[in-house]
């Protein structure tokens, strides 16, 4: 086989490797990424759409992955950035404004429904965390759900470690107040 042919074959193998890797990543982290994205966007369909886009993005960016971080950290970073980009987008701002207007229109059935489920401890805690502003919510989720260390959170979210510490402390205070109100 000539050198030129070898180059050609390796280029082809490289493509197949990349596709297989994305496949494995989806199997291993598909649910984790979907859950992570959900904590940002709070909507199932949107979270699924974004997760799909995130894996496509990973495929495109695979050559940039330099192994200076673990594959998981790299994947999470892409997912977090993509979710935040979505929240900043015009499309998102427009639909949430409509939702906010709709919230002012009282709905009787919604009230009843909430009363029934709200007394459950698990629901209360989850609801409280999901109601936190994003900068606190992401840190609480990454620390208590994903069990990342503060240092890992700092590198995944590209936030200064001291900021992470302060936010975690503040988040706990906020949660305490919220849960107290509920009970």
């Amino acid at each position, binding site marked *: 086989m*000539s*050198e*030129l*042919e070898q*180059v*050609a*074959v390796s*280029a*082809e193998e490289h*493509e197949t490797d990349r*596709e297989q890797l*994305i*496949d494995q990543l*989806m*199997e291993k982290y*598909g*649910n984790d*990424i*979907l*859950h992570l994205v*959900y904590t940002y966007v709070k909507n*199932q369909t949107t*979270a*699924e759409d974004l*997760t*799909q886009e995130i*894996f*496509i993005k990973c*495929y*495109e960016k695979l050559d940039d992955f330099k192994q200076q971080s673990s594959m998981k950290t790299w994947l999470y970073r892409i997912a977090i950035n993509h979710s935040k980009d979505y929240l900043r987008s015009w499309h998102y701002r427009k639909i949430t404004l409509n939702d906010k207007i709709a919230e002012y229109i009282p709905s009787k059935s919604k009230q009843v429904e909430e009363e029934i489920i709200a007394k459950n*401890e*698990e*629901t209360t*805690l*989850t609801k409280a*965390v*999901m109601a936190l502003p994003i900068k606190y919510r992401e840190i*609480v*989720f990454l620390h*208590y*759900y994903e*069990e990342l260390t503060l240092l890992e959170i700092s590198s995944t979210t590209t936030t200064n470690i001291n900021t992470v510490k302060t936010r975690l402390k503040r988040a*706990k205070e906020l*949660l305490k107040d919220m*849960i107290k109100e509920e009970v």
Partner: protein
Amino acid sequence: MNDPLNKLKNSMKKTVFKDLSFSHERKNAVKEAIQRGKHSHPQLHFWKEETILYILDSIQYEEKHGYEISTHLYQKNDNSFIKSEGQLYTLLHLLENKGIIQSEWIEEKKYYSLTTKGKKHLAAVQEDAPKQRASLKHLLEEAST
């Protein structure tokens, strides 16, 4: 110390994440998008072999920026990019991705030069033109799929 947040993982799994999983349909959609993307990407064999050789030849001894390369092609009577200058940059980018050429930014201009691999290819082609040309063509087609 009993931190209520220690229960978060369990709580979320039982509530919001209970019916939330990344389905097979969604995974397949990703795979399909990747396949489609591959085909819509520019392909090397889309360009004439001579054009690629002219480009490699033009940066053989000194690095050049895009405009200099396009002037060189024009002098060689190669009009591939005469109406679509942007295509030249797509081709350069592709050659760079294939490791045949490399680039560096000097004062806001991107200068291209041959990599060792590119030099080998060019030397092989120039040494034994007809036979190796077929081989280059083969490489371009294979590398593009």
